[in-house]
């Protein structure tokens, strides 16, 4: 066992941790499909899926069996290469962005100095999934959905980045662990960066194409938008990719604005994962509550809101934060 040096063991342990985090995120994303349907039902005075197993808990198994055995059909008029590539991009790009999220002091995949920027880069690449899916399907509803998605994502990504620059200016680092440490010493960023929080939350909902920003897949107008031609596992990858996006944005909201793994008033510092999971779960619930309660705005209203309200708000927020940081220095 001469090759089992302490360095090799350390590498193996961190690889193992990364795999555990990967599996946990994917499983959380898959389970969310059941949780979302049950919660939507509760908020809309219905039962939801409650037949399979206790409380309908095995509904997810039934859904997965159905998805695996469905015919994975590629339309003959579709562009085969890009049609197959799109769902892979949809699922993997946001999943990869999870490596910068610090979960507890000891858990987390990578401690990148450019952490936040890495998330922006991956969020920027997700737009290719819908764009390519819409184009490769060779279907006018899919193309319209893809074009809407591209315009929406580009518009909202502008202030997705700007909304967090206030945090970066105050902390002086893109590293998410530094940001968590700064919040532990000072106020949580939800207080000084409330406008950053609001705009980042809105942009996060828009970038994951969640209700009320699900214009690209509006059923009433576009049948199902960019993934109307998809079936079976390819459609499943889009589906799980969306939930992974929700988990990622919720985890980032918890990390960036609510102190990450620290409890309020330093309560229970022995249980960092509990705090992280509670905060992330809370934001996932908010995502679902938004879908349960809000109607979908018109497309032009949504674009105007992004450019005329959110972008100026983030710019003013950044300006004021910069002035305060300069005055304090």
């Amino acid at each position, binding site marked *: 066992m001469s090759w089992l040096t302490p360095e090799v063991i350390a590498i193996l342990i961190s690889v193992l941790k990364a795999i555990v985090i990967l599996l946990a995120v994917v499983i959380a994303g898959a389970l969310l499909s059941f949780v979302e349907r049950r919660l939507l039902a509760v908020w809309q005075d219905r039962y939801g899926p409650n037949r399979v197993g206790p409380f309908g808990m095995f509904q997810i198994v039934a859904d997965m069996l159905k998805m695996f055995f469905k015919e994975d059909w590629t339309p003959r008029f579709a562009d085969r290469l890009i049609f197959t590539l799109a769902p892979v991009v949809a699922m993997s790009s946001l999943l990869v962005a999870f490596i910068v999220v610090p979960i507890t002091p000891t858990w987390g995949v990578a401690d990148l100095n450019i952490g936040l920027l890495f998330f922006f880069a991956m969020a920027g690449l997700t737009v290719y999934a819908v764009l390519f899916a819409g*184009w490769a399907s060779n279907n006018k509803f899919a193309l319209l959905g893809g074009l809407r998605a591209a315009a929406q994502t580009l518009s909202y990504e502008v202030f997705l980045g700007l909304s967090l620059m206030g945090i970066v200016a105050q902390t002086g680092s*893109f590293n998410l662990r530094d940001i968590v440490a700064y919040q532990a010493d000072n106020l949580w960023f939800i207080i000084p960066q409330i406008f950053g929080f609001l705009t980042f939350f809105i942009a996060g909902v828009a970038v994951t194409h969640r209700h009320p920003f699900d214009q690209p897949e509006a059923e009433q107008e576009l049948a199902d938008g960019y993934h109307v031609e998809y079936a079976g596992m390819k459609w499943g990858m889009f589906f799980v990719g969306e939930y992974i996006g929700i988990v990622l944005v919720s985890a980032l909201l918890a990390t960036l604005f609510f102190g990450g793994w620290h409890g309020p008033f330093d309560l229970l510092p022995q249980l960092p994962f509990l705090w992280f999971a509670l905060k992330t779960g809370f934001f996932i619930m908010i995502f679902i509550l938004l879908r349960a309660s809000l109607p979908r705005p018109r497309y032009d209203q949504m674009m105007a809101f992004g450019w005329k309200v959110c972008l100026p708000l983030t710019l003013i927020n950044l300006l004021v934060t910069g002035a305060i940081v300069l005055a304090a220095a």
Partner: protein
Amino acid sequence: MEFAFYFSAGVAVAATLMVIINTRAVHALLYLVTSLLAVSMCFFSLGAPFAGVLEIIVYAGAIMVLFVFVVMMLNLGSGSEQQERQWLSPRGWIGPGLLSGLLLAQLLYVLFSEPSSGTVSGATVDAKAVGFALFGPYILAVELAAMMLLAAMVTAFHIGRHEAKEVA
């Protein structure tokens, strides 16, 4: 790190070659995105993560999306593919290819005639260092670029406003 640099540089060259010889516009753009990602990997391997990630955010994540957007709207069919194939006929590019091959040979000769002392150091250039450089020695270039972008924005605003008035 040097291996990573040469590997991603090779991917970038191959992907860019595919951009040129591909007859389908969207496939060519996909290769261009790959090429930009490879260039960003080059930056990472040279110890410039900030530049690398900006390459992805700005070029792959924003500018190329607009390119793809426009190409999709053009609705290029099999006709344009035929045309591309005609334009890419060997007779057309054999002359330029030969001449650029000569230039490449000359470049390689110059590069390898004197062994260079430069190696990949792996020292990281972080965002702070880039910021100091931009607002220190390169302040004039930053200001000029800002002015140009402002002019472009005013122009875009003017054009968009004009059309909006016609609709109303």
